[in-house]
């Protein structure tokens, strides 16, 4: 989607997975990137119990003006799932013709470290959103520690260049 066309509606992205997979980190990077691109943005998730290996999901919404921080069921434009077994439990979040992005979209072999799957899937998502690459790169730099930045940059690029 070209950035030149003004966005006149809210885009909804659900990121889902299991505790420890980097769901929250991925949604932090996504929210930061769209914030840097100049959109209104809200992000919601539940911390606490869900961090003990259970299901985790995070909602990111952006556009000219966002009200509720939570995406209503059946209204997500994109569902990014980090664990294959979490696809079915989150499918109800997706709108009709919404886009599912799951690990099968990126061969595990394409990643030098499986822990960067969250960022690789963001790379794939980034090609579908009206946000320039520079904002993504800035958001990655701002949200990741120096020592894992490079490997995540590679994962992001791997995601960006996946052909579907």
């Amino acid at each position, binding site marked *: 989607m070209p950035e030149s066309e003004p966005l006149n509606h809210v885009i909804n992205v659900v990121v889902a997975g299991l505790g420890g997979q980097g769901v929250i980190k991925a949604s932090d990077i996504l929210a930061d990137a769209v914030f840097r691109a100049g959109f209104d943005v809200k992000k919601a998730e539940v*911390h*606490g119990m869900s961090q003990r290996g259970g299901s985790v999901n995070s909602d990111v919404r952006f556009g000219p003006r966002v009200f509720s921080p939570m995406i209503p069921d059946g209204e997500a434009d994109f569902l990014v799932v980090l664990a294959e077994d*979490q696809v079915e439990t989150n499918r109800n979040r997706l709108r009709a013709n919404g886009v599912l992005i799951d690990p099968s979209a990126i061969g595990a072999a394409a990643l030098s470290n499986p822990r960067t799957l969250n960022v690789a899937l963001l790379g794939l998502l980034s090609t579908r959103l009206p946000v320039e690459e520079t904002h993504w790169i800035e958001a990655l730099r701002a949200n990741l520690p120096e020592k894992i930045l490079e490997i995540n940059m590679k994962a992001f690029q791997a995601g960006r260049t996946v052909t579907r």
Partner: protein
Amino acid sequence: MIQPTMERILLSGNEAIALAAKNAGVALGTGYPGTPSTEILENFSELGGKAQWSPNEKVALEVALGAAFAGARALVTMKHVGLNVAADPLFTAAYTGVSGALVVVSADDPGMASSQNEQDNRHYAEAAGVPMLEPSDSQEAYDFTAAAFEISTRWRLPVLLRVTTRICHSKSIVQPRAIPKPEAEPSFVRDIEGRVMIPAYARPAHRKLRAKLAEIAAWNETSDLHQVIAGEKSLGIITSGVSYQHVREAAPQASVLKLGMTYPLPLNRIQAFVESIERSVVIEEGDPYLDHAIRAAGVTVEGKPEMYRFGELNVNRVRRILARDESPEPVPPRGKPPQLCPGCAHRSVFQVLHDLDCIVSGDIGCYTLGVLPPFQAMDTCVCMGASIGAGLGLRHVLPRDQARRVVSVIGDSTFIHSGITGLAEMVYNPPATGHVVIILDNSTTAMTGLQEHPGTGRSLDHSPAHKIEFEDLARSLGIPHVHTLDPVKETDALKDLLQNLLAHEELALVIARRPCILASRKIREYEAAAQQSNAECHYATRET
């Protein structure tokens, strides 16, 4: 990590509260960790504020109150159930008032994402008689924290900042603004009649409180904390907090009266709004607090059906309320439940309790997950510290063959919070069959995200502090049997010990000590940093 800034920035509600507190010149932040409130004090500390964890919320509020007596601005943070613990000082602090300012943050958890109940703490504002503000996003979390300090300073009253999970943990854009800071430095000014609540001084203090609240109610009628969205006259919605956001999305055409200060209520303003609208609906999460107060004032509004008292609201539920839809709601697919981490030391203890067929009086923390399969080794869990009291109660009345199987399990942070008085009860009123208490000591407050407490020997910022030794404490109380072991390395010994202790029918405390696997690396780093700083200090001392 959050940085001090006046730039437009994306913040969680908790981060926004911390930033506002820093910019408002808060001299001391206190609290006890509790989801969803925990990050407020952590962020306040990272911003350079003086922040400390107290043993529990009651102590935290008392410490903050003392700071506010001295003329300083103080912030105290807790989750909703924490305010039950701190209710005692809160109610009388409303009588004494403050000299500086005191803002009490209550972070409620509608839907119980990580809590044992979904109590609605808006009732506390009315019950205690303290003004209450309810932000609806991070910008308002910032602005209303500032307003809370201004109101507390002006009327010399504690102010309740009531937030919910979706305010605390949602991120949205904040434009910080400069907040007027207190002019005077803390200094003691004697005010015996104002602060010593013997009946003779408390009676006039109560009247003074009611007079202040009447003044605030009048001020609130025209305050800029509220917002009117002019829309169609056929539907008007009265709302507050995060519900406002759901409302704007669910009913974009409706007129909306969004309330910022929800105690005392601006009833004239509400009445005027309702009179201008054909159908007025109150949209609120949790209890019908606004609905009852508005209808009690003789203003006709429509509340929500009882089914929407339970759980969080969201856009779809607001649509249903407005459509008066009481049909069963779709049940969302169940996700994977949380579980004790692989390698967690609690697993060994619960396996032993399961194998010994113990009746387990449990408590609040990660280890509450011991209730789930495969262990199912927990029979009660009510509130912080209840494991010991409830375990003793069970022992007192159960037949002997059952009573001697009762064990209380409590985490280290929970023990500091509310378990010490339980041990005093145990030695004072021992059951005929004795009792066994196990402290599951993983050297951190794990469930809320690895916070320190007085038993870890480190402060909120992880720098060294005095460490309370549970063994010394138990012996000083007169508990005859005190044992410490590693539940992972000594699982068989733990089983033998418990079997023995249960058979002996005496009082015993077992400390099952092994650091949380998520915390152990960090703990080693903190200890290494402390050693290095000690060595440097020693070196510097020798040089002089």
